[in-house]
Structures are given as structure tokens and as C-alpha cells.
């Protein structure tokens, strides 16, 4: 019920007096109401629930998290095994 997925805003327009947008979800394009994210810009990612954008993704926060994980992955690669004692599969971070 509270499912929401991130999509990239590719167009902003008005319909019936409401701010609306077209969002691209990895190739699938759909419309959403943008009234609750009034400052959103084309190119930003918004989280959409039941036809409404409810948050603009904070890309800086996301980047900070990835940096922490990249550190984890690097540390893991140095240890050479995972928690199950299996050889760790190296994958490029990012």
C-alpha cells in the first residue's frame, strides 16, 4: 500500500490547475502529481506513491551512503572471505 518508487522527472506541466510531471522509471514513463514537491526540477529523482511525488531524493545523502559502503566492500576484499567463510566475490564499487 505504501509502495513508492524513484523516478526521474523528465517533464513538468499543468493540468486541471495541478502541477504534474512525467517521470521515467528506468524506461517506463508515467505521470505523477507534483503538487507536494513544488521545487522539483527536471532531471531530479522523485519518489512516487499512488500517482503523487512525495519526496525529492537527496542525491548528496545517497552519495554519502555509497561512500561508506564502498569502504565496506574494500575492507571485505582485503579480508578475502565473507561471513559464511566463502571467498568474497570482488565487484567494482559504485
Amino acid at each position, binding site marked *: 500500500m505504501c509502495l513508492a518508487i524513484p523516478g526521474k522527472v523528465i517533464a513538468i506541466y499543468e493540468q486541471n490547475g495541478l502541477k504534474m510531471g512525467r517521470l521515467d522509471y528506468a524506461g517506463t514513463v508515467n505521470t505523477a*502529481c507534483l503538487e507536494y514537491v513544488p521545487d522539483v526540477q527536471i532531471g531530479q529523482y522523485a519518489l512516487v506513491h499512488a500517482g503523487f511525488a512525495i519526496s525529492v*531524493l537527496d542525491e548528496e545523502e545517497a552519495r554519502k551512503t555509497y561512500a561508506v559502503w564502498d569502504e565496506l566492500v574494500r575492507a571485505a576484499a582485503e579480508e578475502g572471505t565473507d561471513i559464511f567463510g566463502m571467498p568474497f566475490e570482488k565487484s567494482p564499487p559504485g
Partner: protein
Amino acid sequence: MKYLEEYRKPEIVRHLVQEIRAITTRPWMIMEVCGGQTHSILKNGIDQILPKEIELVHGPGCPVCVTPLEQIDKALAIARRPEVIFTSFGDMLRVPGSREDLFMVKSAGGDVRVVYSPLDAVQLARENPHRHVVFFAVGFETTAPNNAMAVWQAHREGLRNFSILVSHVLVPPAMKALLSSPRNRVQGYLAAGHVCTVMGWEEYEPIAAQYHVPIVVTGFEPVDILEGVLMTVRQLERGEARVENQYSRVVRREGNRPAQELIRKVFEIAPRKWRGIGEIPASGLRLRPEFRAYDAEVIFDLGELQVEEPAICISGLVLQGLKKPDECPAFGRQCTPQTPLGATMVSSEGACAAYFAYHRQRAEEVREGAEAGKAADA
């Protein structure tokens, strides 16, 4: 897909599990409130990879599951009327009322339609001026601003043939009700990320302080959930009880102000019944008096309905985290997603349906055991 794949990487998952294992010194019971998280936990086997000391219990955060039986019966009564186009999100159609569900009403000729957004229901009202369009407004704080916008828009355009059947519930009062129960076993909470996207997390701070439980606002991907568990366990091990935000790429402390404003303009706080739990004071929303013209319950005046719940179903205990789905005598036998006795088996976010789908092996063992039992009795 950007902002999803990064949160599903197995090496990060493994690392977080390792980290949780490293800091856990004793058993802890953590509740994920949100049904979407329950689904993700079971689908990804997160409950299986955590150290055995960490038990996840599933909370009441499935709007489909907690919508009271009388609201479902009211929806059915309205949907049967020839002048009505009854609209809903798809997951409400199979929820059993006392005797039937919305699919049965549809197959008997009722005009029941699934919409993606409540604004689609408003559009149907514009296009069908001689019919009355009702939208089934079910959900938590995540869905409330969208339904508020539909009413606001209908009001602004002067549409007289649109109304909503409201069954909105709020998460914090339910968390407080569970924590106040003498049977409470929950020591830490993963708070529902998308509810907090709308509402922020300020209202959780007094709960964390009063009941001395850590509350961590958490997202939905495997990495999000494990990071939420890690943050919760870290607090529990240190004896702390604060609100933290794991889902910082989406959730801000103050939430979404414009969405909160419209909720307040259109709805007011009211007591609500929760299916399987009972009435919780100030735990839901109803339309404000100035929007009563859009209240389907007022328009169709259905009065009090007599309802009957199946006696064998333990969904109420499951919703309160007091029982696991496979502890129910009907689980996988009389009660399956094809023949659900309770709403927790209907919605994919219901704990019973998630157990059935992802603990299938266990469900099959239960069935085989039952059949073997029958054969032995014969």
C-alpha cells in the same frame, strides 16, 4: 534502476549481517511496523540470514489488513448500487467482507474499477456526470495526502458526483497501543519509511522517550532493512532509545510540509477501529465537517452493519506481533491466498500471505502433515 540496485548488492548485505552479528550479545525483539517491509524481509530471506538472537516481529502496518470488516461491507453495499462507479486500489478487491468481496460484486454486474491514483477517480467523475464515483480511501499517512488532494480538487471544481469512503489510520497511535499492552514484547522499532516521508519523525521522539525504545526510520530494500536493524541493535546494546533516520535519502525530519497541510485542511483526527485489534482512540482520519458532502458514508447512509469474522482466524494476534502466521491452525489449510479467511492472507503486505509465498516449503510441509494425518485417521 538508479537508487534501487545499489540497495540490493549482496556484498553489502553480507557485510551488514556480519556487522549485526559482531555487535549482538543477547536476544532482541524488533518490530517492523510496515507491511511493505514485512514483504521485503520474507521475500529476500532477511529473517533467515540474521543472527538467531535477533527476532523480527511483524507489525500492523498493512492498511488492507486493518481495514475493519464493516468498512469492507459498506464498500460492497455501495459498489452494488447501479448509479455508482466504485474505484479502489487493486489490493482491496479480494479482501473478504462478511459474505463476499469486491470481485464478486464486479462479476455480479457492479461497476468496480481499479485506479492507479485517486486523481483518476476524480477524472472518472468529470467524464461521467450522471454517475456517482466513489473512491475507497484506505491507507496510512502515506496515502492520506493523495486522497486529500482528490477531495480538494473535486471541491475546487465543484464536482458533486464524487465522494470517498474513508478508512484512514495513523501509525504512531498504533505503536503506542502495542507498547502499552501488558503482552508487549517489542524492544525496538523499524519505523515505516514512506509514512515518515510524509509526516517526518518528530512525533516518534516522545514515543521513544516514554517507552524507552529505539525507533529507526527505515527504507524498503534489503540493504535499507539490514542497516535499520543494525542501527536498532546498536542502540539496544548501548541501552539507548532515540529516533534515528536510516532512510536519509528520502526522509527529512520535518517530513513533507505541503502534504501535511492538505491532510489537515481536508481531514481531522478521529477514533478508528482496526481489524483484529479493535478501536484505538485518535488513531485515524475522517473528513472535516466542511467536506462532509464528499463523505460516502454520509451520502449513502448505511447505518450500522452486523458483521461476522471467521472464528478460527488469528489475524488480530498476528497484526499485534503476538503470533506468527504459521502458528495459526488454519494457515496453509483452510486459509491460503486463494481462499483467505483473514485480510492478512489477502494483501501481499499481510504477514500471512508473505509467509505463504516465501515459506512455501514450510507451508507444503504443513499441508503434507495434514494430509498424512487425514490418511492415518481414515
